[in-house]
């Protein structure tokens, strides 16, 4: 696994011992089974995570109480090579309803051998989360407006006060 970074993107990759078709299938169909449990914007536990396999579809979490959280939209769906999705989660880990402020993540699958696949993730356009921060201006009224790092400073401030 490797990590490198440009200013406004995050890149990671992993090589898995699986044919490309299976690598793609597991990544998309079973995404909910391996994404970190703390990735949950619902108030309750996640019952299932659904990846709708088509452009315009969503990834959504369904909570045990039936509530839903659509946190990604499928922008490109090209099995078994590539998917591109939006990331509609603000730096405060809340749903970002403004598509202009959503970043995007691309997953590329490359067959290295018949049974080995390289999976690369590029999560990019992160600057979109930081542009047009009207909410930051309103952030004094509600803490939802603060980007993560500012929230951290605000918390520190509160502790020091």
């Amino acid at each position, binding site marked *: *696994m490797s*990590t490198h*970074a440009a*200013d*406004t*993107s*995050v890149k*990671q*990759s*992993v090589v*898995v*011992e*699986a044919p490309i078709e*299976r*690598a793609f299938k*597991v*990544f998309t169909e*079973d995404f909910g*089974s*391996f*994404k*970190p449990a703390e*990735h949950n914007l619902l108030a309750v536990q996640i019952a299932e995570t659904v990846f709708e396999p088509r452009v315009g579809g969503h990834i959504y979490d369904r909570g045990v109480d039936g509530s839903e959280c659509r946190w990604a939209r499928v922008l490109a769906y090209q099995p078994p090579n590539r998917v591109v999705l939006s990331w509609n989660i603000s*730096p405060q880990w809340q749903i970002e309803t403004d598509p202009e402020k959503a970043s995007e993540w691309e997953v590329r699958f490359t067959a290295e051998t018949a049974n080995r696949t390289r*999976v690369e*993730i590029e*999560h990019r356009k*992160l*600057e979109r*989360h*930081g542009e*047009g*921060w*009207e909410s*930051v*201006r309103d*952030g004094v009224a509600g803490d939802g407006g603060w*980007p*993560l*790092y*500012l929230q*951290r*400073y605000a918390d*520190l*401030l509160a502790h020091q006060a």
Partner: protein
Amino acid sequence: MANDNAQLTALADTTRRAVFELVAERPRSVAEITRALPVTQSAVSQHLKVLKAAQLVRAEPKGASNIYHVDPDGLASLRAELDRFWSKTLAAYKIAVEQPPEEER
């Protein structure tokens, strides 16, 4: 992040935070920021200097004046968060995908 304290201090001042929030809203010149706030231009310049030193804003020369932008390095924290997220996700994915296929439903 080593800058936490500097950024914290920089944002502790109410006026300076207002200056930062104006720049965060959209890139602006010193004159534009001054017009939006009840303080002098030299006060705004001082605040920008502190914000710049704390790596919260960045100046880009445009004609005779500077346009202030949010420093993209301010995204460092978000990037670190996403880096952790993807590295955990890929590690768990590797385990899932390398399970013998017959274990599938």
